[in-house]
C-alpha cells in the first residue's frame, strides 16, 4: 500500500491568491493511498523542504507529490530533498498548480477544484512510480577524429593538448585535406601551405595523436563514452615502419600517366606515389587500380608484369601482398570532420542533380573549377605558380570567373549558398591580376556575399584596386570558338547581353558533402539534411553536436565552411570533448525504455522509429543454449527516453521508465474522479 505525502505550496501569494491551498491539502488527504497532506507558504524554501524531509521520516512515506510550480522549475530541488531524506528521488513528482492553474485562472472555486484534480492525477501516477537508479556510464577518455583536413587536425590537436589520446583517421594517404591544395587564402592572402604544414607536422609528431591514413570507418558500435570503432586500414603495400620516404620507388615506376588528385588532374603522378611533397606522413602509397603489376594480376597473368618499385626499395618496405587490416579503437567521443567535395558540373550527374552541360566543363581543358585554379596559382602547382592555361600553356589574357555554379540553383538540385565562392573568386581575380598585369578578369555574380571579418573589404579590393570587372548576371553558355571561349552572359544591371571572348573560364562550383558521408552518418546514427550535409543537434544552440550523444561535427561536413569557421568549429568540438572527458562517469536520468522479453516478438518496429538507434536485435536462447529467436534490446546508454518505440509496439512490450504505461494509465484513470 502506498503512503504518499502531499505538499501544497502557496508560493507566497502566487498560488494562494487563486487556489485555496488548505482546501486542496484537505481534499487530497482523503485520497486513497495518501498518508500525509499539508500546505505551506514556500515549499521550496529550506523550512519547506525540511517539512518534506520530516514527513518522509515520520510517516515512512513511499512517495511524494509536491503541488506547486512546474517540474521544470523545482523538480530537481524536491527530488534532492527526498534523496537526502532517504526516499528514492524518482518517487517524487510535481503537480503543477501554478503555471497550469493559479496563474491562468481567476475564479477561486474553479481553480481550487482544478488544483485538486491535478493533485489526484499526479498522486495516481506516483503510486506507480518505481525506485530507480541514475544510470552511470563510464567514459573512455580517448577520442577519434574522422577526417584529417584543417578541421580534423585542429580538433585533434586541441584534444591532444588537453592531455587525451586521439585517433585521427584519414581516408587519403596524407592528412591536410583541401587546404593543402590552396594557393593563398582569403582574406589575408597568406600562403596556405605555409600555415597548414606546421599543423600537419605537429599532429603527426604529437605524442597523444595516433594517425591512421589510407583508412576508413568500417563499423561503429557502442554509445557516448564507450564507442568501439572498427577502422579499415586499406592495403597500402608499403610498410610505414620501414619506409623512409626516399622516393626511389616512384622514380622507377613505369605507370606515369595517372592524373594527380592533388593537382586536380592538371599534372600526372606515378602508381606508387606521395600525394604532394609536404605530405604527412611523407611516405608513398601504391595505387593498385593503376599499377601495372596489379592490372596484370587482375587480368589473371601468371607472372607479375612489373615489380620495379620493390626491386628499387633498399629498405625492403614494399609488399604486394598486404591486405586490408581491421583495427578496433575504443573511444569515448567522435569528431566528424570529413569536409566537402566540389560539385562536378559535367554532363554526367548522380540522381537528383542536373549538371551544367551548357558550360562544357570536362570537355574543354580551359574551362576549369576553383580548385584547379588554386593549383595553377600555387607556387607548388603544375605551372610553378605562373598563370598558364591548361590547353596550350599560354598566358590567358582574359579570364572569366562564374559565381554560383550549382549553388542557389534549385533547378540543378541545390538551393543553398556555398558561402565561400564569392570570397575565393575575388581572391582568384586578385591573384590573376597580380600575376598578369595586362590581363582582364571578368566575374559574373548573383550577389556578393562577403560577410566575415575583413571580407567585404577584401572583395571590394578586387574590384577597386585590382580592377576586376564584376558583371551582375548569369552565364547561359560557354563554347569554343577557335582560340577563344565564347562566354554568353547577361548583365542584369545594364539590362544587356554580354559576350566575352575568354582564354580561360573558372567555374565556382558548389560545395557538396564528401562521398560516403551518408553511409558514415548512418554508421554513427546521425542524420543528414536534404543536401547531404550532416545535421547538427540544434541549428542555433548546439551547432557542433549531433543527435548522437558523444558525436561532434567540425568543418565543412556540416555545411559549407571557410577555414576560420572550420577551425572555430574544430576548437568548439575540442572543448565539448574535453568537458566530456572531465568526468569519470556520466550520469543519466533513468528515463529509458525497457523491453519485456517475455512478450516481445522481435518485429523490430521499435528499432525502425528510434531516433537514436538505441534498439538492437538480440538473440534469445533456450536453457540449453540454443538460439530460439530474437527480441529487441534497448541500450540504456543510447536511449534518450522519448518513448516513440513504445507507441509503435503493438503489444506494448516495451515500456518507458518514468512514463510507463501504468503511470499514464493511472493518470487518465484519475480523471474519472472528476466531479
Amino acid at each position: 500500500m502506498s503512503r504518499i505525502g502531499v505538499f501544497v505550496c502557496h508560493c507566497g501569494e502566487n498560488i494562494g491568491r487563486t487556489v485555496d491551498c488548505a482546501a486542496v491539502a484537505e481534499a487530497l488527504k482523503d485520497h486513497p493511498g495518501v498518508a500525509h497532506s499539508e500546505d505551506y507558504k514556500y515549499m521550496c524554501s529550506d523550512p519547506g523542504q525540511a517539512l518534506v524531509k520530516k514527513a518522509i521520516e515520520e510517516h515512512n512515506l513511499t512517495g511524494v507529490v509536491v503541488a506547486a510550480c512546474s517540474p521544470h522549475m523545482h523538480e530537481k530541488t524536491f527530488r534532492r530533498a527526498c534523496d537526502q531524506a532517504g526516499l528514492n528521488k524518482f518517487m517524487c513528482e510535481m503537480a503543477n498548480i501554478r503555471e497550469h492553474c493559479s496563474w491562468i485562472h481567476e475564479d477561486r472555486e474553479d481553480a481550487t477544484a482544478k488544483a485538486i484534480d491535478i493533485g489526484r492525477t499526479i498522486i495516481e501516477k506516483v503510486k506507480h512510480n518505481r525506485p530507480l537508479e541514475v544510470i552511470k556510464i563510464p567514459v573512455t577518455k580517448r577520442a577519434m577524429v574522422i577526417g584529417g583536413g584543417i578541421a580534423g587536425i585542429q580538433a585533434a590537436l586541441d584534444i591532444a593538448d588537453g592531455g587525451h589520446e586521439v585517433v585521427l583517421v584519414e581516408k587519403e594517404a596524407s592528412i591536410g585535406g583541401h587546404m593543402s591544395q590552396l594557393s593563398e587564402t582569403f582574406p589575408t592572402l597568406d600562403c596556405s601551405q605555409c600555415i597548414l604544414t606546421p599543423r600537419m607536422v605537429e599532429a603527426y609528431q604529437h605524442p597523444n595523436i595516433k594517425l591512421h591514413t589510407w583508412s576508413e570507418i568500417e563499423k561503429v558500435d557502442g554509445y557516448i563514452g564507450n564507442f568501439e570503432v572498427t577502422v579499415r586500414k586499406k592495403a597500402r603495400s608499403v610498410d610505414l615502419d620501414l619506409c623512409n620516404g626516399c622516393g626511389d620507388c616512384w622514380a622507377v615506376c613505369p605507370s606515369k600517366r595517372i592524373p594527380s588528385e592533388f593537382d586536380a588532374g592538371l599534372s600526372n603522378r606515378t602508381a606508387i606515389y606521395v600525394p604532394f611533397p609536404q605530405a604527412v606522413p611523407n611516405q608513398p602509397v601504391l595505387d593498385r587500380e593503376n599499377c601495372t603489376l596489379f592490372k596484370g594480376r587482375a587480368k589473371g597473368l601468371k607472372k607479375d608484369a612489373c615489380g620495379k618499385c620493390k626491386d628499387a626499395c633498399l629498405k625492403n618496405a614494399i609488399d604486394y601482398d598486404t591486405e586490408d587490416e581491421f583495427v578496433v579503437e575504443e573511444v569515448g567521443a567522435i569528431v566528424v570532420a570529413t569536409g566537402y567535395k566540389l560539385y562536378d558540373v559535367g554532363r554526367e550527374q548522380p540522381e537528383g542533380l542536373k549538371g551544367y552541360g551548357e558550360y562544357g566543363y570536362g570537355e574543354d581543358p580551359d574551362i576549369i573549377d576553383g580548385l584547379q585554379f588554386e593549383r595553377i596559382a600555387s607556387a607548388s602547382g603544375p605551372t610553378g605558380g605562373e598563370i598558364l592555361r591548361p590547353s596550350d600553356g599560354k598566358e590567358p589574357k582574359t579570364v572569366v570567373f562564374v559565381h554560383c555554379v550549382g549553388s542557389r540553383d534549385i533547378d540543378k538540385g541545390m538551393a543553398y549558398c556555398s558561402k565561400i565562392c564569392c570570397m575565393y573568386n575575388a581572391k582568384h581575380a586578385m591573384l590573376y591580376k597580380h600575376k598578369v598585369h595586362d590581363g582582364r578578369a571578368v566575374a559574373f555574380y548573383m550577389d556578393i556575399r562577403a560577410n566575415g571579418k575583413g571580407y567585404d573589404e577584401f572583395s571590394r579590393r578586387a574590384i577597386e584596386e585590382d580592377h576586376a570587372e564584376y558583371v551582375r548576371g548569369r552565364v547561359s553558355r560557354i563554347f569554343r570558338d577557335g582560340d577563344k571561349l565564347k562566354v554568353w552572359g547577361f548583365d542584369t544591371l545594364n539590362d544587356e547581353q554580354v559576350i566575352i571572348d575568354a582564354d580561360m573560364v573558372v567555374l565556382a562550383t558548389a560545395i557538396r558533402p564528401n562521398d560516403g558521408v551518408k553511409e558514415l552518418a548512418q554508421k554513427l546514427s546521425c542524420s543528414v539534411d536534404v543536401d547531404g550535409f550532416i545535421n547538427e543537434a540544434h541549428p542555433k544552440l548546439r551547432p557542433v553536436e549531433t543527435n548522437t550523444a558523444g558525436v561532434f561535427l567540425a568543418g565543412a561536413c556540416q555545411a559549407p565552411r571557410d577555414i576560420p569557421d572550420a577551425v572555430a568549429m574544430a576548437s568548439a568540438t575540442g572543448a565539448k570533448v574535453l568537458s566530456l572527458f572531465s568526468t569519470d562517469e556520466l550520469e543519466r536520468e533513468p528515463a529509458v525504455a525497457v523491453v519485456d522479453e517475455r512478450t516481445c516478438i522481435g518485429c523490430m518496429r521499435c528499432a525502425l522509429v528510434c531516433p537514436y538507434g538505441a534498439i538492437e536485435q538480440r538473440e534469445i536462447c533456450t536453457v540449453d543454449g540454443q538460439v530460439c529467436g530474437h527480441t529487441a534490446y534497448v541500450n540504456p546508454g543510447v536511449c534518450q527516453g522519448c518513448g516513440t518505440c513504445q507507441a509503435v509496439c503493438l503489444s506494448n512490450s516495451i515500456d518507458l521508465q518514468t512514463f510507463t504505461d501504468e503511470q499514464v494509465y493511472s493518470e487518465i484513470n484519475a480523471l474519472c474522479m472528476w466531479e
Partner: protein
Amino acid sequence: MTGPAIAPAYAGVDELRRVARELLESGEVRVIIGWEDARRGARPVFITDPAEADKLIFDTRCVHNLVTYLDPRRDHVSELGRIGLVVKGCDAKAVAGLLRESQLSRDHVVLIGMRCGGVLEEGELPEPLALTPENVAPRCYGCDNREPTLTDHLLGEPQPEPPRPVMTIDERVAALDDLPLEERWAFWTEQFSKCVRCYACRQVCPLCICERCIVEKTQPLWIESAAHPRGNFSWNLTRAIHLAGRCVDCGECERFCPVGIPLSLLNRKLQQIVHDRYGYTASDDPENAAPIGDYRLDDQQEFIK
C-alpha cells in the same frame, strides 16, 4: 433458375502436384501446406508424404490464407521443418509482411505461387463455382497481385479478371462515408456490440503475430476484456489500427468472425487512408517499407492546428 456453373480447377494443378512431390522427395521441404478437397469445400492440408501430393487442389474455393501457419509462434508447424507453402497473390503479401517484421527467414520456406483468377466469398462449397458478381470475394475485384512475385515457383496460366461484385468494397466504404457522423457511429457501435471477443479475427490473421496481444495485457488493462460495447469498441478499433499499413486484405478476419462484423470495411478504409496520405499499397515486395514506422518531412498535417 439454374445455380451458378461449376468451374474447372485453375490451370497448374498438375504442376503444383509435381512440384510438391519433387520438393518432398528431394527433401528440400519437410511439409507442403496447401488446399485439399473436403466434404464442405476446400480445406488446408499438411502433406509430408510425397505420395499424397495428388491431394492438392487449386480452384475458386481456396480462400484460406495459409500464411497464418508461418507465424513463428505456431511451434507445432515450425517444428515440422522447412515448409513448402502454396500461396495466392494476397497470401504472398502476407509473407512479405512477415519478412518485413523479421518473423521469418526467407530460406525457411519455399513459396509455390499460383496464378489466380479470384476466389469465392465463401469457401465451404462442395464444388468450385464459376465466379459471378454475387459470389466473388469482393477483394478479388481489382486485385493487383494475381500473379505473385515473391515466389520460388510460379505455376498456372494467366487468368482473366474476376467479375465485378454487386457492390465493391470501395463503394460500400464510400456509402458509409456518405452517411452523417451519427449514423456511422450508430452503425459501427451496433456492429461492434455484436462482438463476442472470440478473437477469431486475430487468430486467423497472418499478421496478428503478437506473443501476447495488447488485449491480453492486464497491467494496465488498456482494453476491457469483457464483451460489452465500450470494450468492444476499443478492441475492434485497436485491432484495425494495429493492421494499418500491414493488412494485406486477405479477408480472413471477416470470414472467420462468427457474428458477421464487416471488418473488411474497416480494413479497407485504413488501406485507403495509408494510400491517400502516404502512397502506400500492400505489396509482396518485402523491401517496400511499411508506412507506420516511416515518415516524410512533408507528410500531410491538415488536421493539426
